[in-house]
């Protein structure tokens, strides 16, 4: 299950915080399930001494490359769980959403990473079967094939593994095109094996095995559309998608349900996922014909249904470049001079204080000082840091025991509202 499932579960829940929390946990569990499926397949391949484990071990590095992705995938899911738990306890709707938005890139990275890993496992299974059953296909040629495919996979996988919001978004939006390329590679490899098999007596058995792999692969949706119907042009653009009452249609086929669209629309409007990423997911669902069309916008009706609108585009811009904020310095809302204090209270790993930064222009910091001789502090961010720390320490002393991360973020949410600093977090850097 992909993040599409995450999206569905997130919004299938009632508006209550409890329901959302449970939905996030269910969604993460599902993503863990698909990671486990890939992990099991990789484990099985790693234990083989014949097939992909034979030929002097020249293919084992490809299996290892797949296994190497498992730690970050599990880490991203664990991080999402931790963030979702904190979000559920914070008791402030704006902050809850802001924390879920911090989890957004992780969930997206894990979902698209799972898809990419499943496809890589498909290639490993195909190679294993060819090595086991198809002596007529040259090992050298298969090595070259696998190296070429890996080179396609590596840049996107690395971007997803970084969990950096901007790199994840770039990789996710490029995924439909990549999936199209990988589908083509898979088809070419399969056809190569089939051609090599021609003339060999027992080739039918091998060819059948290859067909079987094709049918069970993660890409079977794409292959079910091959070959294109006689006379039909493959040049079906994204413009062929139509939003109807039952969902998004590509000809007679339902690409995604209306429920899926409604769910994603809400998440896009909440800023948990971005419109380009939602579009990429839709394109992947639409399959090979769509992926081949890298250009071509989705039709307006479909974009609108995904939540496109000036507000969402504005949100996107303020989160990224645009609105004159791209170069504005990032500031930790949890002062980094007190990093150790926050670490002691649970701000580490996915909850690291570096995750909770905001952009503020220099002029804006200085403006906070303007027009008065205050008794209350100095300038932003010094004033902010002093006030927040003084407040947190007093509250903790009143409480009589250590504050939890959600309590700390609740206090910070209240202060951000008083300072009217929008709750759009971006990751910052140590410094």
């Amino acid at each position, binding site marked *: 299950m992909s993040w599409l499932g995450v999206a569905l579960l997130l919004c299938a829940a009632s508006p209550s915080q409890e329901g959302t929390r449970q939905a996030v946990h269910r969604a993460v569990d599902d993503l863990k399930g698909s990671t486990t499926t890939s992990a099991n397949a990789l484990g099985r391949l790693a234990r083989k001494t014949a097939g992909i484990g034979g030929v002097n071990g020249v293919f084992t590095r490809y299996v290892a490359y797949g296994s190497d992705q498992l730690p970050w995938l599990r880490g991203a899911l664990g991080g999402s769980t931790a963030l979702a738990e904190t979000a559920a306890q914070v008791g402030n709707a704006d902050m809850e959403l802001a924390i879920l938005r911090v989890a957004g890139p992780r969930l997206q990275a894990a979902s698209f990473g799972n898809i990419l890993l499943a496809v890589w496992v498909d290639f490993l299974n195909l190679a294993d079967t060819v090595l086991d059953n198809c002596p007529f296909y040259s090992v050298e040629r298969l090595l070259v094939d696998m190296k070429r495919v890996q080179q396609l996979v590596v840049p996107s996988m690395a971007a997803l593994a970084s969990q950096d919001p901007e790199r994840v978004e770039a990789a996710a939006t490029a995924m439909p095109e990549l999936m199209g390329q990988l589908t083509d590679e898979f088809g070419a490899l399969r056809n190569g094996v089939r051609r090599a098999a021609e003339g060999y007596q027992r080739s039918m058995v091998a060819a059948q095995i290859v067909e079987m792999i094709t049918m069970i692969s993660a890409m079977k949706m794409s292959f079910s559309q091959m070959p294109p119907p006689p006379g039909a042009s493959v040049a079906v653009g994204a413009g062929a998608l139509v939003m109807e009452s039952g969902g998004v249609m590509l000809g007679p086929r339902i690409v995604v349900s209306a429920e899926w669209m409604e769910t994603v629309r809400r998440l896009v409007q909440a800023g948990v996922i971005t419109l380009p990423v939602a579009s990429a997911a839709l394109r992947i669902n639409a399959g090979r014909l769509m992926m081949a069309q890298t250009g071509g916008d989705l039709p307006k009706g479909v974009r609108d249904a995904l939540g496109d609108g000036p507000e969402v585009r504005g949100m996107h811009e303020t989160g990224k470049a645009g609105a004159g904020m791209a170069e504005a310095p990032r500031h930790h809302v949890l002062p980094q001079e007190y990093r150790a204090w926050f670490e002691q209270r649970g701000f580490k790993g996915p909850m690291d204080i570096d995750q909770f930064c905001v952009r503020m222009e220099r002029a804006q910091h200085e403006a906070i000082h303007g027009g008065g001789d205050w008794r209350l502090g100095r300038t932003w961010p010094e004033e902010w840091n002093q006030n927040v720390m003084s407040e947190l320490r*007093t509250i903790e002393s009143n409480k009589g025991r250590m504050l939890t991360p959600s309590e700390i973020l609740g206090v910070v949410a209240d202060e951000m509202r008083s300072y009217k600093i929008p709750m759009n977090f971006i990751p910052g850097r140590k410094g």
Partner: protein
Amino acid sequence: MSDGDAWRGNWLVRLRERVRDRGYTSVTAFAEARPTASLAELADELGQDIAGVQIHKVLVDEAERNHKMARLVRGTLVRKFRDWLPQGWPASLDPDVEGGDRFKVAAALGGWHSYSPIPYRDPVKRAGDILMANPPPPGWYPKGPDDELLRMLIPDDEA
């Protein structure tokens, strides 16, 4: 609202204009007409480009000039109630008791402390300690700076 609008341009001029446009002669007069609103709510009423902390800074300034600082400090706790204890003082400070909550009381009193001018921080700290050691009845909610209990805790400034 776009990022940081409240901190663009000369917010002090903007804030005074908004208050004047609404017929008040001072920010204090505007705020006193809404004694139970939080600072953020006061700001929202004046516009998305005004921040609660800006209003508070001007309130401190005006209170200092008018020698009404103790009154402002009492009013600040009322505004913190709106943020943290909208249902009033909890049934218990023991979080394990039904209706009990220690953190929100701690947060309201901690916010009160950090929004108090430095000369008032010790009295405010003592007042908070007294409230926690001798909790007022469940549901207690001061409605303004004239609240009887608050006046005992933070008496008016000596003339």
